[in-house]
């Protein structure tokens, strides 16, 4: 079995295992929704070398697009999701096109500034977005013969989409396109010298990333029945980026780990202590200092340790931590 198929099997196992280990279908759905968003972020960070602080833009626009479609038109669910995907892709094309005019830290600052721009846009046009309150009472219509009202039914729908999206992203990553992105990440100057229009490739990567993130945003809005202002806020961009980095930027499955860890741990901590972000902040520092390959790197070291000699059973207790689904 090659690496890509192994990772797909792992992703499928996560989708199957979540209902077995978790009591809340809503939380389980949230894990997979953010796994999509983080994997899309990773296509930029890990494959193209672009650290985007603007993923919340596409997530938020996806939420609004789906919400507006379902509230104001009689279009079916599929159309709402498709429109959200398109909204994410279009916005990402624009943001990417402008942001990659500058490189390095300027690029990062631009993406952050654009995320502020879209936040104020959503905040200013209250008639459309509901402003501070968000778009309320978004319905969750059936898809064909399947009703999605019940939380685990919706989870099943999300899980199917998650696996489709994951497989599609894997396909993108291993295509000539994805391999060119890796080359651009490695040595942009050489990529241009051998004939690749680097900017066009970066913008396309943005469009793909934005499309998936828009879809994730739409699924999230349907999950909670609201398209809140917080979906397009700075903190959404920040969270998606954090999930991606905590998971590890080396492969797409790492982002699933990162999202799972972040969503579950934040749910757990926030129910214990409302100021849990303090601990998260500390965790980020720890990750940067000691865990630069993220959870995936930790998992790799663990597997290696287990293979190299079973003489140290002391390591066994570390195990559940790395998967982060001990609930």
């Amino acid at each position: 079995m090659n690496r890509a198929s192994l990772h797909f099997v792992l992703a499928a196992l996560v989708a199957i295992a979540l209902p077995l280990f978790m009591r809340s279908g809503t939380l389980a759905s949230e894990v997979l929704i953010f796994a999509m968003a983080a994997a899309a972020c990773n296509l930029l960070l890990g494959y193209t070398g672009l650290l985007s602080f603007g993923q919340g833009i596409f997530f938020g626009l996806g939420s609004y697009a789906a919400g507006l479609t379902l509230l104001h038109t009689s279009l079916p669910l599929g159309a709402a999701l498709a429109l959200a995907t398109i909204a994410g892709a279009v916005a990402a094309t624009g943001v990417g096109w402008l942001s990659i005019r500058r490189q390095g830290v300027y690029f990062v600052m631009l993406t952050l500034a654009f995320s502020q721009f879209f936040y104020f846009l959503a905040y200013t046009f209250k008639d459309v977005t509901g402003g501070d309150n968000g778009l309320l009472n978004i319905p969750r219509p059936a898809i064909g013969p399947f009703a999605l009202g019940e939380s685990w039914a919706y989870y099943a729908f999300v899980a199917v989409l998650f696996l489709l999206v994951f497989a599609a992203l894997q396909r993108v990553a291993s295509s000539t396109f994805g391999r060119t992105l890796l080359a651009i990440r490695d040595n942009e100057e050489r990529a241009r010298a051998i004939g690749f229009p680097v900017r066009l490739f970066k913008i396309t990567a943005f469009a793909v990333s934005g499309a998936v993130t828009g879809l994730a945003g739409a699924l999230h809005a349907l999950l909670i029945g609201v398209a809140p202002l917080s979906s397009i806020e700075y903190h959404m961009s920040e969270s998606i980026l954090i999930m991606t980095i905590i998971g590890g930027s080396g492969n797409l499955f790492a982002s699933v780990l990162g999202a799972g860890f972040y969503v579950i741990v934040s749910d757990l901590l926030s129910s214990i202590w409302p100021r849990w972000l303090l601990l998260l902040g500390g965790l980020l520092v720890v990750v940067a200092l000691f865990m630069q390959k993220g959870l995936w790197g930790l998992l790799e070291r663990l597997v290696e340790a287990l293979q190299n000699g079973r003489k140290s059973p002391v390591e066994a207790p570390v195990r559940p931590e790395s998967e982060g689904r001990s609930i």
Partner: protein
Amino acid sequence: MIYLFQLVNGIGLGMLYFLLAVGLSIIFGLLHFVNFAHGAFYLLGAYLVYDMTERGVNFWAGLLLAPVVVAGLAALTEAVLLRRIYHLPHTFHILVTVGLALMVQELVIILWGPVGGNVSPPDVLGGVFMLGDFIYPQYRLFVIGLTLVLAIGLWWLLEGTRLGAVVRAGSESTDMVSLLGIDIVRVNTAVFALGAGLAGLAGALAAPIRGVEPFMGVEALGIAFVVVVIGGMGSYTGALIAGLLVGIVQSVMATLWPEGARLMIYLGMGLVILTMPRGLLGRA
């Protein structure tokens, strides 16, 4: 007359943005380090003044102490944590400083609550200034005056002193600084503290104007980035021009279209990027 009022307002706001951005800019210039915790230092400066005036400490003492405390904390952070990560890729600089910013924000909420509050300007400056039809709060005039003096002092520090020479040389090449026989480790700490202290001072000065709330740090970070993108990182003049520009645009728009004032800042940035990808001063 309303436009003159807003223009003067914009200059005051712009000078605060300048302080904020120039701090970010000199840190990056010397350390090649993007400080995502810069907004947190601004936040801290504002809350320190708020706390001290609430406790009955003289406003002037608070205004003096707040940036000093912020600079001290920043120096400590640099010495204990940040210098260990300079050699890592930018991703990890961002991760660590985002983490620090989150921690500061949550600490502020723990210590002072999630709601925020107001800071009264000192009694001496509580009144208004009148010149014919033109009526203007004295405190805001004081802010403009003080920041102008600071801007001149800072210019002198960067252009006329040994430290300034090192900062400017450092942005060219760190090796050269080592060749000059200067203890670069200490200069790094000092410059980081200076940059953070400027952000703290901007926060402290802003507190009586816009009040304090725990999320003002994020907004300040966004503004500082816009100013630096427009003006050019590492450029004093760029930060000054772009800061004033952003401040004035925001103020004037506040009259024309109150809800959209902050939106216009970012729209303006988009236009600059579209027409002048390298920013106003055209540096790489």
